[in-house]
């Protein structure tokens, strides 16, 4: 009888306790590895909802697998498969979302045009000759020739001028053996200033040409 009493007391005291099972069990090896892979791919940042779901499903599966009371192999297998599938989704999403290509920009310092014109100055040609060498060396890249103006004058005019200047530089490259398939040109007018347009120095910085590697 004392034993019964002891059992009742213990039950009363421990009725509220519980713990989360360890996920370090062999059944979870695959899911755990996939979750780690997703984490390494940046899933916590790029696919937080999916990654969290995968992690908690793994914990839930661990609990169900190690639970001694009322074991259900089918349900456990389903939980495991679910944890793995969710982790895979998190990994795929992270790979897509986090691995954004870094746009490389090659600045062509010293490329100038005659005022209000797309005609290149003689001094600019030396800079462009160096750019041609770069494009020949890096035969695997395609580039967009991007031209910008300062904000003096009307925006529409500046846009047209920058388009003509970008085309002028692209034509220079074409004339020096760079394949047309590797080149595009785009004028941005005054829309992407790099410096303050209210100063002479700032406007000079804003009038520029660069190559955007695609």
């Amino acid at each position, binding site marked *: *009888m004392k034993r019964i009493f002891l059992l009742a007391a213990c039950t*009363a005291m421990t009725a509220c306790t519980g713990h989360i099972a360890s996920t370090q069990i062999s059944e979870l090896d695959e899911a755990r590895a996939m979750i780690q892979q997703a984490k390494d791919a940046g899933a916590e940042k790029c696919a*937080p909802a999916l990654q969290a779901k995968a992690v908690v499903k793994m914990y839930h599966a661990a*609990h169900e697998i190690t639970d001694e009371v009322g074991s259900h192999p089918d349900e456990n297998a389903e939980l495991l498969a679910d944890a793995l599938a969710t982790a895979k989704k998190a990994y795929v999403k992270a790979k897509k979302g986090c691995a954004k290509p870094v746009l490389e920009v090659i600045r062509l310092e010293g490329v100038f045009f005659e005022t209000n014109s797309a005609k290149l100055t003689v001094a600019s040609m030396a800079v462009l000759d160096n750019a041609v060498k770069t494009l020949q060396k890096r035969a695997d890249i395609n580039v967009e020739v991007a031209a910008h103006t300062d904000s003096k004058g009307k925006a529409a005019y500046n846009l047209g001028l920058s388009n003509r200047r970008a085309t002028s530089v692209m034509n220079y490259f074409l004339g020096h053996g760079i394949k047309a398939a590797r080149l595009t040109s785009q004028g941005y007018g005054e829309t992407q200033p790099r410096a303050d347009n209210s100063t002479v120095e700032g406007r000079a910085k804003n009038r520029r040409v660069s190559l955007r590697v695609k």
Partner: protein
Amino acid sequence: MKRLSLLAVAMLVFASSAAAADWKVSVDDRYDSLYAQLKDNNSYQAHLAREFASVAVEEKMQHDIGVAKAFMDKAEEHAAQAGSMK
């Protein structure tokens, strides 16, 4: 001796039913509170907290009160971490 055995049985019944009733309310309340706390928080820690809390409620529904509490504790740990990451 009969009294003692009656007392023991009464304690067993009370321990399971009263505790279960207590935790039923408690887990639900904690779940609601956690969801309110994490409203509009989409950080990884917040998602973890919500997922753990959902499992806690699921376990509570299956009368696995101890485990429900453990999952809710885990949920609240992550909710606390999510607080500064909003």
